């Protein structure tokens, strides 16, 4: 489903963040991507939705060469990917419901179906009943769950999360991870970057450890 072939990434004026990374992720897998700060976890994840482009090598997602994708085609690639960020990237001048409706507004769904999907997504992350709240009124864990709801509301085949538990306490982090596991159990491919090795060990899934821009370890359960 996702494959990297000899992918390197160098930022302008900087050093190589990724150096010839090759890997393959099958549909339905849940993969933890670990490594120290600066190991290249975020960069690796950003290459999949074409937020960043590789300096060399190719990234293939669902048979599509993302590295060679025209800019106009990128939005359509991203609609098939659910993206969750460490800082959530929520809109704090909008309600919970309006945040959720944002990706639905460009998916051409009929308003009734869009509303139904929004409520279903909120239900899945345990936020049903908080539609009218402003995200600022939610706890850190709830905000992250709202970000997950926004990522899954268009029913993507792949969920990509960059350090989704970084700023959460243990209980909130566990709850957030349970949501990712639940989505994976219904067939969604999940890629999750984290530096929390205790959580990774607990779930016993495939782990890709990055170090100095290389895949230092690829351990299947």
């Amino acid at each position: 489903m996702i494959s990297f072939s000899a992918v390197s990434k160098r930022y302008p004026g900087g050093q190589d963040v990724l150096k010839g990374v090759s890997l393959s992720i099958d549909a339905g897998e849940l993969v933890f991507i670990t490594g120290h700060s600066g190991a290249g976890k975020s960069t690796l994840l950003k290459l999949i939705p074409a937020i960043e482009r590789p300096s060399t090598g190719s990234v293939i997602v669902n048979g599509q060469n993302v590295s060679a994708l025209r800019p106009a085609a990128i939005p359509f690639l991203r609609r098939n990917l659910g993206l969750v960020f460490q800082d959530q990237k929520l809109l704090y001048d909008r309600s919970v419901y309006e945040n959720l409706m944002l990706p639905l507004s460009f998916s051409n769904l009929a308003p009734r179906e869009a509303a139904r999907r929004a409520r279903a997504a909120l239900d899945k992350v345990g936020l049903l009943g908080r539609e009218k709240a402003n995200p600022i009124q939610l706890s850190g864990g709830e905000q992250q769950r709202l970000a997950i709801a926004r990522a899954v509301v268009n029913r993507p085949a792949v969920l990509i999360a960059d350090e989704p538990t970084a700023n959460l306490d243990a209980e909130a982090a566990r709850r957030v991870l349970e949501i990712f596991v639940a989505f994976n159990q219904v067939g969604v491919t999940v890629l999750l970057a984290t530096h929390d090795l205790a959580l990774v060990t607990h779930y016993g899934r495939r782990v890709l450890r990055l170090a100095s821009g290389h895949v230092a370890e690829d351990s299947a359960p």
Partner: protein
Amino acid sequence: MRSWLRQHRRALIAAIGKLAAQKASGVVSALVIGVALSLPAGGYALLEGLSSLASGVALEPQISVYLKPGSTKDDAHALAARLKADARIGRVRFVPRDEALKELKATEGLADVVDALDHNPLPDAFVVLARDSSPVTLAALAAELRRVPSVAHVQADAVWARRLASLARLGRLAVLLLAALLAFGLVAVTFNTIRLQILTQRDEIEVSKLIGATDAFIRRPFLYLGLLQGLAGGALALGIVWLGLYLLNGEVRTLAQTYGSSFRFDFLARGDSSAVLLFAGALGWLGASLSVSRYLLEIQPK
């Protein structure tokens, strides 16, 4: 098609929301556009009024030749023969003094004055239509006719009307140039308003791009906002022109009455008003389009 319409409806609703949220700054922008547009629109309305006044006067190359009081029929016949023989003259019409008096009596407000006269003070006259309409030819012909002994006065009627028409043409050109100049200003105002909107919505645009919004989707509400702002400015311009003409007509009516005329400046015709609105809307759309194209490129998700 249905989803396309739905997208546009959403964009329009979003634009109306943005316009409403702008409050004072939105009103000021529309006012700036309205005042700027009212200048050429008002100028056009005034020129149209003056043109209609000028069009009531014959613009043909016409010269009126008045005979001296006491001229005989022979004098009139001799002059008629001379005029008809002149190759520069296309048509000659003799206006006897009695007919001239009847025409004068028929003029609004002059019947009583004519009745009060104890004799006909008007001379016999010829209305001459020259073949060449150039002012130089007309002036030369008029000068030559003035030298005829039986002629008292020669008046080249078309000259002043032509001058008025030329002035009207010049005025129209000035209005067009002013409109073109102010159009740039209008585009600049909209460009800046949309730029500020984009900057205040930077986070939303960035997130939208991250989660799969196309540039067209992001651009659409801003284009509608530019269009609405232009239309609002256009409507204000029409309001300003209407008010200006209303106030002006109060004085014009008084002045025209002293000439026995019911002249007044008409408001822009329906077609012209629609053109002002469409022009304003199109310029708003253009300004927004330029702004969005320029600034959306700068916002890339990281």
